[in-house]
């Protein structure tokens, strides 16, 4: 493999779900678990797309022992909005974008999952080191 080909080999894995929905993932993972950073990408038509984590980042944190406090949502919202994404009342990280900005938001989604999972890691009732 030469250097030109290397970037392709680092690319996303794509899992088709339906005609309008795919799941894209990387080989980077959440801070508290080996779950790969990834997200759903929905084709809304007319060159518009919706990115979503289906609230799975926070679901994974809950299943690993994170116990949410009411104030945490506000702090998480700040983290998410810094990345130009949104955090819903149901804990879903999402954004709707035109095709031209898709690569921008795709990177922000991964940064958000990374940041949010580090936030949750600090609040886990166990230590990372064994």
């Amino acid at each position: 493999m030469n250097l030109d080909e290397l970037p392709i080999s680092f690319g996303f894995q794509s899992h088709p779900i339906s005609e309008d929905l795919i799941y894209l993932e990387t080989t980077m993972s959440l801070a508290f678990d080996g779950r790969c950073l990834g997200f759903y990408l929905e084709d809304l038509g007319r060159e518009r797309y919706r990115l979503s984590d289906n609230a799975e980042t926070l679901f994974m944190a809950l299943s690993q022992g994170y116990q949410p406090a009411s104030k945490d949502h506000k702090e998480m919202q700040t983290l998410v909005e810094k990345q130009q994404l949104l955090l819903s009342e149901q804990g879903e990280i999402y954004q709707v974008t035109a095709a031209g900005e898709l690569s921008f938001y795709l990177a922000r989604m991964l940064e958000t999952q990374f940041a949010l999972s580090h936030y949750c890691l600090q609040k886990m009732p166990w230590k990372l080191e064994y």
Partner: protein
Amino acid sequence: MPSATPPLTLDAAEALIYEAKTWDEAVPELAWKKLSTKGFPEAYYSYNRLHPEDEHSHELAVECYYKPSILQGLPAALSLSLTYNHQRLLGVDSGMAGSHLNKSLHLPEDERLVGHPHLHRPAPGMLKDFAEALPASELADLWEDFLLLANLLEAPELDLPAAGDRLL
């Protein structure tokens, strides 16, 4: 925030998994509660302490999480865990599209990325972060597999919170 549990050794974690355990007969079914913290997933949670009144100083429990998908056409996510002070010792995850990464170059490449459903159990150097693939199965069968591996007897059947009016 709860105080952090001291790290377990691999041997101690395996001993907790392998010791025979019995479900609390006073709890004849999984009692699901809806998580109600604003801004968090609309998920359901069932916490079932084992050894409710015995001499153990630790807290061993079965913790289950269930989340219907927000996006249309996707299965619900289910997470089953045997925990020690909320730290996962043994677990089964099902229903999500993403993969789990085993961060070890000692594993063959096709065992590094594991889809759902999968099993988590301690492995050298990866007390909780090692996953191995499970065959696609009904959720009730995954629950039975989980109970068997957790050496947990007399547990109720998996009763999912499908109907809202049955929730606590």
